[in-house]
């Protein structure tokens, strides 16, 4: 049985696209959590038009493995997730998953990193997206 972690419940004021991405991200985080992952460090939800992007900064600890997820609504066919330093040097990006990018990353140093979510294809703008970061199994304290 999956448990609900991290994210607040989708409110009734949200529309179906917001609920969709909220539920999908919740499911992804639950899966990682069920396999021994920790609580999510970051979860963001929002809207982007095609060719727009949003960035967040997060502190990641040295030696800890992190799973970084992105999900988007039914009208989105390509969401790009990029992990970079604050100086915008790209460290990891998902090139394969179209609407559900996932990154696995273990930092060598504890520092602030930037996560960029780019809406590359959205059939009906804006598209809802959600991004989450969770320490994966085998994480060192």
């Amino acid at each position, binding site marked *: 049985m999956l448990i609900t972690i991290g994210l607040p419940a989708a409110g009734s*004021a949200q*529309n*179906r696209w917001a609920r969709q991405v909220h539920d999908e991200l919740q499911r992804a985080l639950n899966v990682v959590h069920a396999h021994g992952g920790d609580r999510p460090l970051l979860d963001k939800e929002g*809207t982007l038009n095609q060719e*727009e992007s949003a960035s967040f900064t997060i502190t990641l600890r040295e030696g800890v493995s992190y799973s970084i997820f992105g999900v988007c609504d039914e*009208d989105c066919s390509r969401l790009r997730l990029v992990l970079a330093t604050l100086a915008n040097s790209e460290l990891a990006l998902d090139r394969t998953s179209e609407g559900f990018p996932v990154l696995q990353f273990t930092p060598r140093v504890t520092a602030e990193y930037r996560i960029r979510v780019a809406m590359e294809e959205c*059939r*009906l*703008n*804006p598209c809802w997206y959600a991004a989450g970061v969770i320490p994966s199994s085998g994480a060192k304290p």
Partner: protein
Amino acid sequence: MAPLRVWIAVAVGGCALIALAYLPPRGAAPRGPRFATYSPEPTAARRRAQAVAKEWRETDASLRLLEDRQHVKWDSSRVGPAIIFRGPTLPPTAVRTVEAVADSMWRALGLGETKVRAALVIALERAPGSAPGPIPDQNGVAFLTPDSTDRTTCMAFLPANHFWTAVLLGHPPRHFEPDWLARWFQSGLGPCAYYAAYGTPSRSVRSWLAARNWDVALYLGTHGIAGERFLSVNLLGDPRYSWYWDGIYSLSPSTVACLAGRLDGCRSAVLYGADDDARIAVPEIVRLEQGWWRKQHLLPGERFLGDVARDVGRDRFQSFWTSSLPVDTALAAALRQPVGEWTKQWERRFIQPIRLGAAAPLGATLLALLLAAVAVSAVALAASRRQVR
């Protein structure tokens, strides 16, 4: 006789050239208006005061729309646009009636839950002096389109004149028909209806529409903007009267050429602004001033994209709406034919091709021919007398 023939040919050719150069175009009034009213030219100070007042009203209207956007209350039990009233308080029953009409109109447009939600701000007519401070803008229709600070809300400002205020307050005139209110709401949604139906357009489409003040996307409905067959093109009047032609020739050359059924003109009229990389202001406020139809680049442009959408179907229109290709390419791909050709056929649904070019009145033509004949005869007579035998 050979030199005489040359003289005659030169004289006739000269007359033709002068006629082409100086005859007024078809329908143009030969004189100034007979019943024109002349108002004294305002002083520089008055013009300046009017300009400042206009700027104040526009800024005030923009700020009010931005404030309203922050405070819209979305009712999850309704599908239609949120309704915000300004001015006198409406009784609850009147509010419920208005919301029910708005919901029906929304469904009639084929809309339900939409990514971009619309809110109609209806400003009821206020008596002068009923509120402190200057009177805000109560005439111009305006729209606040979604932007990066709020990608999911489109606001439409709809001023209610004396007639509509009475209707909304529950005192409609005797001849009032039930569907008039829904039509008024539908035309008041303007670009917000497109945002609701097709989402936010791509940058190239949005830039094109911004450059021409959204004149081709003001009405999504199946009928005319204020009734079954009422279109902006009807406002030109009757071709038998000179004001019709005054109206025609106040339009841009490509608009007139399209009315005359010329392919290039239709293409230029549709693609006006498509080549510019127009800056999209944030917030983007689209204003429709009184007499907006006189500034259209295509007649009846207000329904152009609505008709395109109906003709090509939802999927093809959606591809055009969000395409990052140049507008002419994306639109031609959606139409599956050149833009000018489709537009020329579309124009024929509303107006017969007008005839352009010089048009001489019958009396003036006869007089000119008579004068030309006299001139030619005089020249011929003079030439024959000067011949050396």
